[in-house]
């Protein structure tokens, strides 16, 4: 398999070109946006929660590299039907396993941008904990 095929595997390209759950929800229970200033990736996520804080619906918009947008698209599929608390506690490795491609430290930030933004949206909706690496700020995140 070529380096290209390893990084931009078919699943990634499919999510990039046809993102799932694309578009923000209105009304919603939580919304957040974030940027990766290094490369200019932008992601906005909105969630709607049902009984027991279960994520009933999630939608995103953004612009950025294939990895950031595909990873966020894949994330929306993973989290639907799970509780806000469960997702807030989800380690980034869970998402990275799903993405399943080798990532350099710079590209890692692209891949986990959507997860961080989603956790901020859940925090705003239900007060769930923020990811440790982004401190206690309840504001929108900027990865640096």
């Amino acid at each position: 398999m070529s380096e290209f095929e390893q990084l931009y595997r078919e699943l990634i390209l499919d999510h990039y070109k046809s993102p799932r759950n694309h578009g923000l929800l209105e009304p919603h229970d939580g919304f957040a946006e974030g940027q990766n200033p290094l490369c200019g990736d932008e992601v906005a996520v909105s969630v709607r929660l049902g009984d027991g804080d279960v994520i009933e619906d999630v939608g995103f918009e953004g612009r950025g590299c294939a990895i950031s947008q595909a990873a966020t698209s894949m994330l929306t599929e993973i989290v639907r039907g799970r509780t806000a608390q469960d997702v807030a506690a989800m380690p980034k490795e869970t998402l990275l396993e799903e993405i399943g491609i080798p990532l350099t430290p710079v590209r890692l930030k692209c891949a986990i941008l959507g997860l961080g933004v989603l956790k901020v949206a859940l925090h705003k909706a239900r007060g769930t904990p923020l990811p440790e690496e982004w401190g206690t700020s309840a504001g929108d995140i900027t990865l640096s």
Partner: protein
Amino acid sequence: MAVETLPALDAHRLRADFAFLEELVNGKPVAYLDSAVSTQKPRQVLDTMRDFYEHSYTNVHRSVYRLAERATEGFEGARRKVAAFVNAPSEREVIFTRSATEALNLVAYAWGLDNLGPGDVVVVTELEHHSNFVPWQYIASRTGASFRHIPIDDAGELQLDALDRIAADGNVKVVANNLVSNSLGTINPIEQLAAWAHERGAIMVVDAAQAAPHRVVDVQALGCDFLAFSSHKLCGPSGVGALWGRRELLEAMSPFNLGGEMIRSVALDKTTFNELPYKFEAGTPAIAEAVGFGAAIDYISAIGLDAIERHEHELTSYAMSRLAELDWVTVYGPPADRRAGIVSFNVEGVHPHDVAQVLDFDGVAVRGGHHCTQPLMTRLGVAATTRASFYVYSIPEEVDRLVGGLHKVKASLG
């Protein structure tokens, strides 16, 4: 040893001085098209630094033993080279800093905090690197001065007809501009801006980080008051930069960093400060790096700044004509004859990070990002661009490899 000045630059021959260019990526030598971020280092610079560490190294301006004099002489010799390189009237007006960024912060803090206030106007441009933008934005906000920018036109050139509108806003005190834009390569009309600034009693601060490696920079001909540049973009080591400033301004300014070296005498109740340039050089400086900075100036001066400028112009023209063949590529900035060796572009529908990633598979090293110019990216309506940049060792074959790689980007992700 003096090296004979070449009538034209022989990039293929110069490449032998740069071991890094032999590095392989996927079995192919790297096509290093990222010199605007930092240049590679020739062995002449590395040898000079190693020789200095092995035979002349200790701290500077401290000790009386004879070997220590060699260290001070090496360091001060580098200062004389930097001064001559930008045609400074006196080497005492040259301050070694950590970087061009630190040099610009020095001016913004040490001059700005004492000289700016409500009713005053600080003028930057939409083309600035964050290092000549954010310090002024911050100091303007700290002092209550207003912060304005000169906009650019669609070709990435400054719209000087905005100056009158800006001047109506208050008392213009600072005009800060880069001589060459790091994102677009635009060469800016510093002489004209300096004259406009001086008519209003303002100072002209020039960020020459992206200009000094590529063309002759003469502080007296530019008519500026401060000029900052760094070593690492002109074949020298990172960790050292220089600020040139007009003596009367530097002498009137408060110190920036405080500590050793920058003092004349210290008592429990009062400290008096050292003379120029030491007043602004607190602490142990980057000694061997300064010596390497001087060696780099020797290296590029021997090639000849005019020859470097011509070489980069040829490569830039070639790259722009090759990219113009690709109707799915958008190139930003002015025509080749009004820019330095920098070409920023986007591939339709593909993020610059993905462009840079796919090019890397072929060993082509370019930068994808906002290049620390977010206001400019906003003006261009893009999140980021891909940037190819050239230096003395760059060759047309590398431009061909770039274009070949872009076809792969288009085929796979476009």
